């Protein structure tokens, strides 16, 4: 995000404008953080999917399931239940993150309209 640029224009920047610019900057930062978090959450989701698929294929009764830094020997059924729970947690988390991202994009568009309306060419709010 670029800050208010210059073409020697006369438009004055009020405190409200400054606060809107600050708000836009905050939203933009949060947006990038969210994109990273969403990527991580999707990866975790995929890993859990792969894990549960592998589980269906395996013949063993005991599966080595990672808890902390060690692999505990746990019966296959229990592992299935655990993985289902983890999948639910991650998908809920992913949903929440996606929702937050949408709301932020909407807020940023609102602010863009207002700021471009007042400053036109003197401000650049696009990604570089």
């Amino acid at each position: 995000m670029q800050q208010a640029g210059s073409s020697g224009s006369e438009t004055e920047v009020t405190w409200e404008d400054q606060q809107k610019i600050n708000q836009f900057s905050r939203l933009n930062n949060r947006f990038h953080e969210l994109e990273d978090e969403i990527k991580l959450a999707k990866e975790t989701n995929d890993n859990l999917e792969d894990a549960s698929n592998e589980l269906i294929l395996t013949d063993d009764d005991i599966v080595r399931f990672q808890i902390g830094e060690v692999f505990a020997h746990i019966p296959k059924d229990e592992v299935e239940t655990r993985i289902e729970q983890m999948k639910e947690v991650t998908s809920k988390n992913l949903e929440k993150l996606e929702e937050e991202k949408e709301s932020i994009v909407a807020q940023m568009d609102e602010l863009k309209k207002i700021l471009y309306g007042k400053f036109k060419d003197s401000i650049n709010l696009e990604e570089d």
Partner: protein
Amino acid sequence: MASTSASAIEGTVTERRGIPAAAFVEDVQTYLSQSGLDANSALAFFQERLQQYRVVEMKLLAQQRDLQAKIPDIEKCLDVVAALQAKKGTGEALLADFEVSEGIYSRARIEDADSVCLWLGANVMLEYSCEEATALLQKNLENAKASLEVLVADLQFLRDQVTITQVTIARVYNWDVHQRRTRQAIATTES
């Protein structure tokens, strides 16, 4: 939000945890005459402020990364203690494969775990009952999350000050350019 009066800004913070707030400049002309600075000195001052903000930002980002790494670790520890507690009731032993050295694993048989040892740092390890361990780890987790929240708020405040300073630099620069142009225009019409 701040009041809408043209000259005074009520309710703004002057600094936060050692980070000075960037004073918002209502009017460039007034600011420069009040402070007695010319455009270049003002720009130099703001640039230096910006540098100082960047240094603090680096420090806070490093702290944030540390905390963000610590939190999943504590959660993993809580999982392990919970697993041990779950096995306690059943009377079965917990078989676990653990890493002895890189690429080399061995099997451990953990019978009825009444207590666990927690690594507290500084080469100190203490034995706790499972309940005490859970309580301690839970407390550490909450402290870490609370510190992270404060840190994130600090970073937001800092970034706001950086944005304000950048906008002020742009405005002072524009004003200066505008001044030069008007002076040149006057000079050419007079000559």
